[in-house]
């Protein structure tokens, strides 16, 4: 009896937690497929009577007549994808090389270099933005995807080094010793032995870096001004401030911006949990 009661109580709490998680998301999705008149009705229409995917079609398959909002989302989603993928690729390549050296090779100032790199990861963006802004305008990169890739590396690279370090540390040194006895030099060992067994680490690190770049808002807000470089968070924030009318279009933009990170995180779930525990942090 007592046991059944306990199960019922715990199940109730699970249900409560699930409601807390899904209520806002459900409303986001419902708003994106509701017609405008239903969204602006009182009492509120929880279940849309005339669900429509027109907002999605407008963004994904634009025609001549599609709205400003839809066009902007389409372009900025593309910019976000370009910037986040480039940042991930660069951070993975340079970050894993540096990380390997910092973890496995002995050289002067190793410890202080490591700590210095980790320290830079904690510098808030707002403390870097004015000099980076001045730099961007001086070299003519203001409002370009390139300046976003460059500035995002300020958090992505130390982040990648930090995450990869945890993986390299878990690889037994004996493996490398064996490879060296077999005549591999340091770089061959890294390429042939270490990289293949670190692929889970690379996937997990890549995932975290991609998510943090996709999420980034502040640099994009300051360093871009038109759709040629704006990312999707900036587009959403701008519409939130201005277009109160096209709520459905905005919510659709929100859903589309949330789909890549949510899907990736769900697919690579086990990496997320282990990465979080290793001290990986993206808010």
């Amino acid at each position, binding site marked *: 009896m007592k046991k059944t009661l306990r199960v019922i109580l715990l199940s109730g709490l699970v249900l409560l937690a699930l409601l807390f998680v899904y209520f806002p998301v459900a409303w986001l999705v419902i708003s994106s497929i509701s017609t405008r008149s239903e969204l602006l009705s009182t009492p509120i229409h929880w279940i849309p009577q005339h669900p429509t995917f027109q907002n999605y079609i407008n963004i994904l398959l634009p025609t001549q007549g599609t709205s400003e909002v839809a066009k902007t989302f389409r372009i900025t989603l593309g910019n976000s994808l370009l910037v986040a993928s480039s940042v991930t690729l660069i951070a993975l390549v340079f970050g894993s090389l540096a990380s390997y050296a910092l973890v496995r090779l*002995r050289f002067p100032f190793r410890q202080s270099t490591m*700590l210095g790199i980790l320290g830079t990861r904690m510098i808030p963006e707002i403390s870097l933005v004015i000099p980076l802004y001045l730099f961007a305008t001086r070299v003519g990169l203001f409002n370009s995807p390139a300046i976003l890739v460059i500035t995002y590396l300020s958090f992505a690279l130390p982040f990648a080094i930090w995450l990869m370090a945890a993986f390299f540390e878990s690889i037994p040194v004996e493996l490398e010793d064996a490879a060296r006895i077999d005549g591999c030099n*340091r770089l061959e060992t890294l390429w042939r032995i270490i990289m293949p067994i670190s692929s889970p680490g690379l996937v997990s690190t890549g995932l975290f870096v991609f998510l943090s770049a996709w999420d980034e808002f502040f640099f994009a807000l300051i360093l871009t001004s038109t759709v040629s470089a704006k990312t999707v968070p900036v587009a959403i924030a701008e519409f939130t401030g201005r277009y109160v009318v096209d709520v459905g279009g905005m919510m659709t933009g929100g859903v589309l911006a949330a789909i890549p990170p*949510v899907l990736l995180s769900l697919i690579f779930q086990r990496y997320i949990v282990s990465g979080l525990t290793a001290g990986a942090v993206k808010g």
Partner: protein
Amino acid sequence: MQRKRTLAQQDALVAFLLILPSLLIILGISLQPIVSTLYLSLFEAQRGINVQNVFVGLANYAALLNDPVFWVTIQRTMYFTVVSVGLELVLGLAIAQLIHSHPPGWQFLRTSLIIPWAVPTIVNGTMWRWIYNADYGALNGLLLQLGIIDKYIPWLTKPNVAMNLVILADIWHSVPFIALILQAALATLPADLEEAASVDGATAVQRFLLIRLPLLRPAILVALIVRTVEAFRAFDIIYVITNGGPAYGTVTISYLTYLEMFSFGHIGRGSALSFLISLFTLAMAFVYIRVLYRPEETL
């Protein structure tokens, strides 16, 4: 002996080459700018063309410390940080505990928690802003139907209410992060300690407070420090939900810095502010690195 030294030298050379690209990037886009910001904070610098910057030493910092707006903002930032992180920790711990007791549906709950964590901050903010909407929002709709309110309320027009609602949005996003970390930590705890205590007659509450909580301390510390740093410099979510309003009621320290730099054009003063944020963050980072580097010491 000879050969050993050449190997060590070889290692150092390889290490240098492997680290060099990263080091150059970090020097260029992190260290140079932060030094530059520190330098700018010593000037009466205004935004604009051909404005002469005047060296003022620490005057920007002194002016900040004498400015009541600065202190009100610090107070507000502290409120935001303490309340959101505090509630996130309590709720996160509760959910982790719930998952750990493996009730029906615990795996589904654990998977579901990833969603709020993965939703981009700006999308999260926009979603909540729409939920809080005065005329058509889901919050009003829900509370009215439940009979809790009898007419729609313009939630975001009162500074303290707006602040608490921003905190709620932040909680939705961050509780999963803490819950996921803590449930992973719970899963690694040895069961025998608690069993032994149970045999010795310890109650469930005693076991939780005296055994489980101390064992969780390193994980809790990591989550706390990370979230504190983030909450202290929160900007995105405030920008999108309230724009710092109403009546500057949700302006936290990062938001004030942003306003000084980009709305008022006080580059020197904004730089001083941003440097203060960096100092706080670095202090927290120091603790963070110590905790992560030697977790066993903190037990």
